[in-house]
């Protein structure tokens, strides 16, 4: 089965678009939890590029698949850490009564 050249790139291109979208989200969103979500979108996009470009005739290359699985696991681990940090920060801030997620210990 031959895939038309343009369609063969469909998923990777979607991946590229997701990366761009996620990046835009990261820049334009302020709340860390949303940024975390945006990062996940970027990650998904990258995986799609990686997997989509490994699409062969009939099967998809297992090599990128393995890389993607590793990537997904790493990504969820990091997301969990991020989420935990965000909640702990909120708790601490509540205890201290300040309100910003920007580090406060700046300069003199």
């Amino acid at each position, binding site marked *: 089965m031959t895939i038309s050249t343009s369609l063969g790139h469909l998923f990777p291109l979607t991946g590229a678009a997701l990366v761009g979208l996620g990046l835009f989200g*990261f820049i334009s969103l302020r709340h860390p939890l949303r940024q975390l979500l945006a990062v996940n979108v970027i990650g998904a996009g990258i995986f799609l590029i*990686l997997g989509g470009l490994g699409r062969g005739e009939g099967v998809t290359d297992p090599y990128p698949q393995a890389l993607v699985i590793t990537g997904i696991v790493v990504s969820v681990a990091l997301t969990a*850490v991020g989420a935990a940090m965000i909640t702990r920060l909120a708790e601490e801030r509540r205890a201290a009564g300040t309100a910003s997620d920007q580090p406060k*210990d700046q300069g*003199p």
Partner: protein
Amino acid sequence: MSPLDLLVAAPLAFMVASLVVGRGGRWLILAASPAMLALSAWLVALPPDAAHLVGDWELPLGILLRADGVARLLVPATSLCFVAVGLYAWHEFSPKSGRETARAHTFWPLLYLMWGGSNAGYLTTDLFNLYVTIEMVSLAAVAMAAMGSLAAGLQYFLIALVGSLAYLLGVALLAAHYDTVDATLLAIHARPDLPTLLAITVMTAGLLVKTALFPLHGWLPPAHAAAPAPASALLSAVVVKLGFVIILRLWFEAFAEVVRPAAMHLLGGMGALAILYGSIQAIRQERLKSLVAYSTVAQLGYLFLAFPLISNAPNPAEPWAAVLVHAVAHMLAKAAMFLAAGLMLKAVAGERISDLAGLARAMPLSVTAFALAAISLTGLPPSGGFTAKFLLLHAAIEQGSVVYAAVLVIGGLLGAVYLFRPLSVACSGSAAPVVKAEAPLRVAAPLALAALAVALGFAGMMLIELSSLSAPPAAAGPLPAEPGR
């Protein structure tokens, strides 16, 4: 058995052990230190072409481990830092009766994770494997940074995440394009086409975030300044180096044929700006640890300033050695400095530079450690920092790069300006503040590191020799592994 495996496996085993042991986890450092130092020594002593494939799986697919000059210099240095920091932290992160904290328990597994991760990073040539190691190190680093300030830790975490993903994007493009992510193979096959260039670009940019090169350094000072002293030491000394080493490998090994001089100068320019900017900000700081953190920003600039100098040099071995020696010297000195700063600040229960008054009298050894580290960081002889800057300056002058030479000189002077300020405050006053005596081991750690950083200045020839070792590229000959079993 080979140190190439054990250097990664042993810390991970210690991580597991420390999780299982729980309360007594800190004692493991007493076993880990000699073991890891011995392994590092073994690594250095390996024959020049030492390399092997993990599980003997052939290259396009498998993962190649090797002991090149970079690894042989940085792995032992990293080990030294970890050992010193570990011994120092043995007091700080100990579960005290009745007041056990999460930190006392989790610091140790994180330390080993970081240790294993950075060793893995220095030893592998596989770019995806590097991604995993970066994440190992970043994860531990973020957790350690968050121990000081959650806000700073979160900031670091998010931006590092973006950096990691940028790197991963590049790896994805390369994997798809070349069907391999091994640096040694890429060195043979790489073509200067758009995907490759974009891949290098995003990977480099992502790593620059992790290495905190100006102007992407914003996360570093708050995170490094706020963390507990041992954590700061590791963050500034070890963590940022990994990203740099990967960039070095990408630019001078995997894509040596692809990278253009303009890009070299761009990186060099950013390095120069980092030196100036970091130094000026450091001068402005009132808090000791902020100052040291900004010094890291500045010092990292030197690593990148070296890029154009290496690529243009008639004899690249010298600037190449210079940049590695600088990495090593900065590692040792910065770790020493953070540890010493930690001791001093704890003693006076303050954080400002002005709180240090009279400490030279009260805790001479800590101040000495700080001073020795400052000497190396400023690049004053005799020290590793001097050797590095000397070679860089030599290269810059040789190539007639007035701008780089000027930045090197000015950077050194600015370094003296900010590093001698805390020292001079420590020397001030006539009455010595009363401070609690520190455990000798804690003082010995920074002192030993700083002394080593200084002592590096005497071993210039050896360092150059070591650093110029390059592992055999994959295609250069049959690999020690039998193909495909």
